[in-house]
């Protein structure tokens, strides 16, 4: 409650909060908000020559190259993209945190092994992994999310590893050990909270990139399968139309940007609020 109050007090965080809430509402209530089905290729959705219709008239955001209502697609796409951006990216950050933390904390063979494994994964072109998984698994939204998580955790692990190495040397960790605290307790209560700023940066900056990555994957056939919309594949499908039908690229683009930015604003604010060392300080 206190956190929420503090969030609302900051104008930038408030803005972020409003956008995020709007996007969430849009995702949840998409069927009630949209006048059209996102998959419905409307008979009058294309010009006679087959060109998409610009925003205005019956279509708030215009139509896409198949004559579907873009507004409806963006609304329903929010569901896909939020899952990709939040869940997939979140899982990636979580795995990265876990592996990096363990590798940095556990010294000796176990830590070394973990880090070498990370090196190996790092040296492995992400796209290839995705394609191979595409062939092995039946593509679905959740598989896509998993693939993205598998591809993206490595760099987080790297950074977390370095940071953990620094933290472990700090006196208060030694102090905890002298009190008899077990590894689990030290990791969860005393190291993890200090890694949150990094997690927040990667968690928020990563939203935009993963949403776009999903589009690349769908191009390779492992993304969400058509006609299911996602912000990424709306852009990707029609990026060559950016001159002739700019709304197809720039509307979802702006929405991705605003969403990622809003999460970042909230993240930044949360970091300040939750970090007690910032409180009462200037």
């Amino acid at each position, binding site marked *: 409650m206190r956190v929420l109050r503090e969030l609302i007090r900051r104008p930038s965080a408030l803005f972020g909060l409003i956008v995020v809430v709007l996007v969430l509402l849009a995702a949840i209530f998409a069927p009630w908000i949209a006048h059209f089905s996102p998959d419905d290729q409307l008979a009058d959705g294309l010009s006679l020559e087959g060109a998409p219709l610009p925003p205005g008239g019956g279509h708030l955001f215009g139509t896409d190259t198949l004559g579907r209502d873009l507004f409806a697609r963006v609304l329903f796409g929010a569901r896909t993209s939020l899952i990709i951006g939040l869940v997939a990216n979140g899982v990636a950050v979580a795995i990265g945190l876990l592996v990096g933390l363990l590798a940095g904390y556990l010294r000796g063979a176990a830590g070394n092994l973990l880090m070498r494994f990370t090196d190996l994964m790092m040296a492995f072109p992400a*796209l290839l992994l995705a394609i191979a998984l595409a062939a092995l698994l039946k593509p679905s939204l959740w598989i896509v999310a998993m693939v993205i998580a598998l591809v993206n955790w490595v760099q987080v692990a790297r950074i977390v590893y370095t940071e953990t190495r620094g933290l472990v040397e700090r006196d208060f960790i030694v102090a905890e050990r002298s009190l008899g605290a077990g590894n689990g307790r030290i990791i969860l209560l005393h190291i993890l909270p200090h890694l949150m700023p990094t997690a927040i940066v990667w968690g928020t900056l990563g939203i935009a990139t993963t949403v776009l990555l999903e589009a690349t994957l769908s191009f390779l056939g492992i993304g969400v399968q058509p006609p299911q919309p996602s912000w990424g594949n709306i852009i990707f499908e029609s*990026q060559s139309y950016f001159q002739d039908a700019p709304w197809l*690229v720039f509307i979802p683009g702006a929405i991705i940007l605003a969403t990622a930015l809003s999460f970042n604003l909230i993240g930044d604010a949360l970091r300040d609020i939750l970090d007690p060392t910032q409180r009462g300080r200037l």
Partner: protein
Amino acid sequence: MAFFLARRLVQAVLILLGVAAITFLLLYFLPADPAVLIAGRSATPQMVAAIRHELGLDQPLVMQFLRYVGNLLHGDLGRSYTQKTEVLPLILARLPATLVLMAAGIVVEVALGLTFGIIAAVRRGGFIDRSVMMLSFVGVSSPQFVVALLLLYVFAATLGWFPMSGFGTARHVVLPALTLGVLGAGWYARMVRSAMIEVLRQDYVRTAHAKGLSGRRVVLGHALPNALLPIIAMVGIDIGQFMSGVVVVEAVYGWPGIGQLAWQAIQQVDVPIIMGVTLVSALAIVLGNLLADFVAPFVDPRIRSQ
């Protein structure tokens, strides 16, 4: 140092072998059958079988892999299924362009990232800081294809300042490098900013001020060198990314880099090329990290004596 390098080299070789093994295994499970693709649509099953035999695809997976590694040790990456030629020359022919673009892209990225990151850190919390952070978001959330084409329309097609396509002169590299740089600079700006904020509150920065140095000199001469380590690590990572992943920019600017080769190979499931590019990019990543480790002591003398 020599010992350290030797150890890293052994590690690098192991990593490459690991990458080769995993890649091989993954590709083995792809449904596409190269023999069918080669034999063409007028072929009979016997012809397909004959070609499969020619390629050694009728042998067990382990044998195939051992043969691949054996050839690898002789510098033989195999023959492309679709291009019907040795893979190594195909990759080598595209290496110069890739390296040029990589160097130029990283230079732009780092230059922009450093400039904006430093300004944001120095003006922390202010209007400039916020604008820079906002821009960094625009950078990371822009679709490459659109940015590349926009730059091309404006600076090449309309203004005619740069050639629209190709590779060769310095003017050719400007737009592709700029595209990559603009898009990648966001990450760098963020990293530089947070590293600089940390460094700027160190005691030695205060010492530098106390000496009477100008603000610029304190920031660039004393603070910046201390904030460079994470940036160098990131450049190391980037080297690998550039080695395999700048398909879109290469395509828009007609840049003869490895990315296009890799993309075509992926689209055509040309396994030997995919393997080759994977290994080369893994090698680049490993070398990139090695390079970062190698450069780090020059930036931070403390590492030198470890």
